[in-house]
């Protein structure tokens, strides 16, 4: 999901926008809109809600740019803005059923290795992900889908690193269970054979 920035660094674009250069904000928005949509999609679970949230998050980003102090990486700050918007959407959607298939989301980018099984598997994972409790889901989306380091996730969510690690671990377990995976039952004194069967 992460792509190396090209052109001026993010912080430079922020500075130029704050000096009145609208084009600098356009470049920031264009550079990050896919990332914002991707994270919203995995947290919210369906493309239309994610598109709404991504639009709101990008608007919020623009309106809050003068609050970006450059202490954290711009992407960390942006994930924080996006997660706040996603949590707002989750709260608003609490009365609605969350579990929906992403029928218009072909999931992974096309690649040479792509085949029907992989696409179907990604659909299953996306559907299972929305069954994971939201705090755990947010943690694994940032850690395992967007590959953010734990200390960065701690800044995004304003949580201690230990809490982030715990949520990631619980989230991974919940995702596996939502996919119908159960650990092989085994006598207590045997070594962890299940590890070898997976990798």
């Amino acid at each position, binding site marked *: *999901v992460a792509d190396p920035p090209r052109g001026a660094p993010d912080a430079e674009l922020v500075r130029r*926008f*704050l*000096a*009145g*250069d*609208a*084009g600098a*904000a*356009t470049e920031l*928005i264009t550079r990050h*809109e*896919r990332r914002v*949509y*991707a994270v919203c*999609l995995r947290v919210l679970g369906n*493309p239309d809600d994610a*598109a709404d949230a*991504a*639009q709101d998050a*990008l*608007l919020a*980003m*623009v309106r809050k740019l003068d609050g970006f102090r450059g202490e954290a990486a711009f992407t960390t700050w942006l994930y924080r803005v996006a997660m706040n918007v996603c949590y707002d959407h989750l709260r608003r959607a609490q009365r609605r059923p969350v579990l929906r298939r992403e029928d218009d*989301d*072909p*999931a*992974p*980018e096309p690649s040479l290795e792509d085949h029907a099984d*992989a696409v179907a*598997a990604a659909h299953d*994972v*996306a559907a*299972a*992900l929305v069954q994971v409790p939201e705090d755990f889901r947010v943690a*694994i*989306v940032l*850690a*395992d889908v967007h590959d953010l380091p*734990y200390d960065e996730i701690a800044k995004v969510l304003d949580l201690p690193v*230990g809490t982030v*690690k715990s949520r990631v*671990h619980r*989230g*991974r*377990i*919940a*995702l*596996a269970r939502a996919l119908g*995976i*159960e*650990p*092989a039952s085994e006598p207590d*004194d045997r*070594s*962890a054979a*299940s*590890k070898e069967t*997976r*990798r």
Partner: protein
Amino acid sequence: MSHPGPLLADYVDGTLDPSARAKVDAHLRTCATCRGEVALAEAGAHAADALGAPAAREGLGDAAIAEASRMAAERNPEVTSIAGRARRRPTTSRVMAAAGAAAVTLLLVIVAPKLGQSSGQDFAATGAAGASPAARAYRPATGVEVQHANYSFGALPDVVSGLRTAYATANGLSAAPAMNAPGSAGAEATAVPSLPPAQDASADPSKLPKAMACLNKAFDTPSGTLSRVILASYEGQPAYLGVYLIGPGADLPPTLLQLNVASVRGCDPLGQTTARL
């Protein structure tokens, strides 16, 4: 060792240092609960890792871009980074930003005579490139123009009236009203357009499909040729302004000019005004 909960995420990631890893391994040999959880967590991490990037959605940043343009115009009206901006645009933005939305209609009328003159000339220059009068008249929009402006509901009839005057001037269909006549209230009203640069270098072709889809959704696919699309603010919210030329068909010149305004968020119809050409 008690259950090594806080270490298990790192254990699954394979990022524990060797001594910590050895301790966890020792615990796992004796604890079926943790062993089962680690196996599940590994499966979960592997599944999440396989999700990949979703298909792209177009136009997600359009509302933010319009907002950024508005904010930048307020912040520093003299800096206009989007290519091909009308020279007088900053003046309008500065005046409107200072005055606030409530007074916009009135101010447009006051500022208008200056804008109207360049508007007609821009249309004339654009039209001269066309092959035949009819082909020229129906030239479709090639991109979305981004404008630092906030249009108001009350100004729409004047905007359309100004567009009509500019269109007539460009296509030589009839003499333009005496826009420069001093002291004429009618001339000031028709000069209000403030939609100057016609299909200039700032028109962004990549935004056109999303903008057209939005205008079509809001107005149920209106008839006519979409000749210009502007991304700006309307009553304080990001909006697409579509200028349609509607004719009797058979390559005859258009007889109606219609301005449709749709919200960027949700593609709802916000306003519509029609003028006879």
